[in-house]
């Protein structure tokens, strides 16, 4: 049965979504448990699959037994094995953590939401696992549609417009990608990633291939919110329901980064991207600008959720720059950062979700004294913030290490400075929040600090707290075990694709 795992990983959530929609007319209370069950099985399968890949090498799965390039092939190597695990684990933990907030925010439509959630996860898993370019487009659109719908279930005033803007940019992105795939098909006659990779080297000088590459890249960048194509992200994530932005923020953009890495290194190949095209310096420059722009824009925000979304924009800059630096240290940093950033962003949004469950809005003025009101949530938030700044032993430090090393090795001091600078700005961003939360609301005329009102402890419920603390502990664990993760998972992949 184990050789069917790849298909199972996609089919289980989809079937669960179908059953859930059937249950909507039947026993509605079974919807949530069914979702949890489906995602648990999926998560376990991804781990089994990753273990298999680590031990035996890449796994090839052919849908319905058709051989490539005619059939759709799923190829799982270390990179997408890792990303699969990340996606499924975060989806599962988020589902458990979001039970209360979904009840609170989406009272009548919880089942619809869970169905959309499952479809979203299906799409993401599919994008990661597939080895066929067109299949990727289809699953990407499945993901996006589920995302558009979920976002529109949020803030009643602003989310439809935010979602609509996302629709426009998302369609442009996906369509550009499709266009690129079209050009590739014209030139190579194949849609299978591995097949194209073997055909392309003879076509390197072709203008059509170059056009294909550009279109694919721009499409993927629009979907991952690389500056300046990021304009859809802050509004879309800020106004979505809590449970949605908690899964979209860490995963959606990171999966697109995975697609970019896949295209760059497995389909087109390092030789093409870095030697034929002389673009890498410029892209890294663009990435550095993205990092700084995201950081600076985050500084200007007065609302916590919006601030975090701009930090995501900044992090995407790290990932794109790291991938385009073109040496193994930088690529190691990028892949590790995909893992780390997904975890850190997830932890941050979990904490913020707890806060918005208890507080009415997340404007900075509202956050005073939060350390005494919600100490455990804040502990998780502090760990995540510290990780984004990049302080050991949290995981954020270790991926930054590799990125900085890679920049140094490549002699790209602009990127190096951008990284250091954005760490400083992130420190300012987070410590500003910590300061506000640490200091109690001031009573006028109050000078002597020994007798002031102590805020009442009102933490989030356990089902929201435990996942947060678990993920926060995970940040530390992943950080400390970075060496092991790099050795077993990341380095073999990187040495396989980098010359």
């Amino acid at each position, binding site marked *: 049965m184990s050789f069917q795992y790849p298909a199972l990983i996609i089919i289980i959530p989809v079937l669960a979504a179908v059953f859930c929609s059937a249950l909507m007319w039947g026993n509605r209370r079974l919807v949530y448990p069914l979702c949890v069950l489906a995602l648990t099985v999926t998560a376990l399968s991804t781990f089994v699959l990753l273990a298999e890949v680590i031990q035996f090498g890449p796994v090839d799965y052919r849908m319905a037994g058709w051989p490539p390039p005619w059939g759709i092939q799923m190829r799982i190597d270390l990179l997408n094995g890792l990303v699969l695990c990340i996606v499924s684990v975060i989806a599962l933990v988020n589902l458990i953590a979001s039970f209360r907030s979904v009840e609170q925010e989406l009272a009548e439509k919880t089942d619809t939401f869970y169905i959309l959630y499952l479809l979203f996860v299906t799409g993401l898993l599919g994008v990661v696992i597939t080895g066929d370019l067109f299949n990727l487009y289809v699953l990407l659109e499945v993901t996006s549609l589920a995302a558009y719908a979920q976002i529109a279930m949020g803030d009643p005033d602003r989310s439809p417009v935010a979602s609509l803007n996302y629709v426009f940019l998302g369609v442009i992105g996906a369509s550009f990608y499709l266009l690129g795939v079209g050009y590739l098909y014209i030139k190579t006659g194949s849609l299978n990633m591995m097949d194209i990779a073997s055909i392309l080297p003879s076509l390197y000088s072709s203008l059509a291939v170059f056009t294909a590459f550009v279109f694919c890249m721009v499409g993927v960048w629009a979907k991952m919110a690389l500056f300046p194509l990021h304009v859809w992200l802050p509004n879309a994530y800020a106004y979505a329901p809590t449970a949605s932005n908690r899964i979209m923020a860490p995963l959606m953009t990171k999966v697109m980064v995975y697609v970019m890495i896949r295209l760059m290194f497995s389909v087109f190949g390092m030789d093409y991207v870095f030697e034929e095209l002389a673009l890498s310096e410029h892209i890294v420059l663009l990435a550095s600008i993205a990092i700084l722009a995201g950081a600076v824009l985050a500084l200007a925000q007065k609302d916590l959720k919006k601030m975090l979304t701009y930090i995501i924009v900044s992090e995407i800059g790290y990932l794109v720059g790291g991938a385009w630096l073109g040496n193994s240290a930088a690529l190691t940093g990028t892949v590790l950062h995909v893992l780390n950033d997904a975890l850190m962003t997830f932890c941050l949004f979990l904490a913020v979700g707890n806060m918005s469950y208890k507080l009415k809005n997340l404007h900075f003025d509202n956050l005073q004294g939060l350390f005494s009101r919600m100490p455990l949530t804040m502990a998780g938030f502090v760990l995540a913030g510290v990780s984004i700044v*990049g302080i050991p032993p949290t995981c954020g430090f270790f991926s930054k290490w590799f990125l900085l090393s890679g920049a140094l090795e490549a002699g790209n001091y602009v990127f190096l400075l951008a990284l250091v600078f954005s760490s*400083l700005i992130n420190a300012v961003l987070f410590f500003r929040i910590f300061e506000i939360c640490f*200091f109690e609301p001031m009573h006028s005329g109050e000078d002597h600090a020994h007798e*002031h009102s102590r805020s009442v402890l009102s933490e989030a419920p356990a089902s929201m707290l435990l996942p947060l603390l678990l993920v926060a502990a995970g940040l530390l664990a992943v950080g400390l075990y970075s*060496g092991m993760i790099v050795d077993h998972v990341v380095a073999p992949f990187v040495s396989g694709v980098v010359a």
Partner: protein
Amino acid sequence: MEQIISIKPLFAVLASLLVIPVLISSSEKPNIREGWTILAGIIKFSLVVSMLPAVLQGQQLVYTLFTFVPGVAIKFRVDSLGMLFALVASFLWIVTSIYSAGYMRGLKEHAQTRFFSFFALALSATIGVAFSANLLTLYMFYEILSLSTYPLVAHHQDEEARKSGRKYLIYILGTSIGLVLPSMIVCYNLAGTLEFGSQGILAGQASPTVLGILLFMFVFGFAKAAIMPLHAWLPAAMVAPTPVSALLHAVAVVKVGVFSIIRVLTGIFGIELLSALNLGHVIGYIAAITILVGSLIAISQNELKRLLAFSTISQLSYIILGVALLTPKGQLGGIIHIVMHAFGKITLFFCAGAIMVTTGKKYISQMHGLGRQMPVTFLAFFIGSLSVIGLPPTGGFYSKWYLVLGSLQAEQLPLLLVLLASSFLNAVYFLPVVFKGFFAPVYSQGVKPGYSEAPSMCLYPLAITALISVGLFFYPDLFRDLIQLSMG
């Protein structure tokens, strides 16, 4: 140097970390909570002492936790230099815990559990720095120390605390992320490792200009050493409760800063490389400026804790100067000053806090005649001052003596003059406090009639540290031996 694998360094670091949940759970019972803190301190100190015999025999205890990339791991190594620092820090934690209990109860401070918990965390980080085997581990514990001391500095949670806390973070985090992190990565790229080597690891790896810039980035990056112009966080941090100022800013935080710089100078660059590049002189002069300016500013201070802060800024650069002289006697003087200054300064801070608890006074001008009411406190203050000035029969004389010899050995006459001038300036601002305290008429405003000495939980610690300051004059052998082992 023989290396033994031992898990003791890890336990020494963890001793205070593991006690934190216990502290939090006993927050309603202060005696139990303080009892646990002191117990943890004793355990930590015992663990450190238990490793002493091996270190004195020339062995090093190592323990690797997590390997990250080849040559870089979270790794502990107990050598003589780290042992020296750890002994001082862990012993003084015990003393400070007793003192804190007295102080916090005397002033009925709020959030005491938070205070003791973060204190314990800060001490874990300090011992971690002491026992770091490589630059990464040191950096990690350095950052943990910065983060864990923020709630301590901003403890009072008023407007002043907010401003000081912010300044603290800007200076300390800004330099560590902006300067130390890139330098560390450059270092790794050049040398392929970050382990502290006995001759340094950077010899011949890059051009003198690059090495020079790297050195400056490290020296200014460890802003906890309060080298000017990155010193402003230290006086600002005096808004913290006095036990925080005492241990952390006279002993642990600032000493972590100079310790890190010493590790970089000796373990990353190496004495030979620094003399070959003539960089010792430059660092020496930078330190000399801080020494003089710090003392000069101290003279103008009216608030006792700020005076002590500037004195600390000045004294820290003595340590840097000693090592920057690049001679054996200079190194001995500089490094042993870590110990002498620690005991002297902590006595002074304890006294300042005792005065605060008993009389509520912060300003020197208000402390005239107080010595007659609080003779033990002021006597201890006198001893502490003598140690910082560098007069016998206190330990401070020993370190100053070797610093003078070291500067002669290095043929650096200007630096010698700086040392002597600064000692004179120290006397100028310390001694009047003591004399006016004992001999001047009592300052009549705000006098609480009939108070006597400080509470005993405050009094005993300061008496102990004062006595030790004197004792170190007569028995500096242990520390001298440790330093000479470290110099090979």
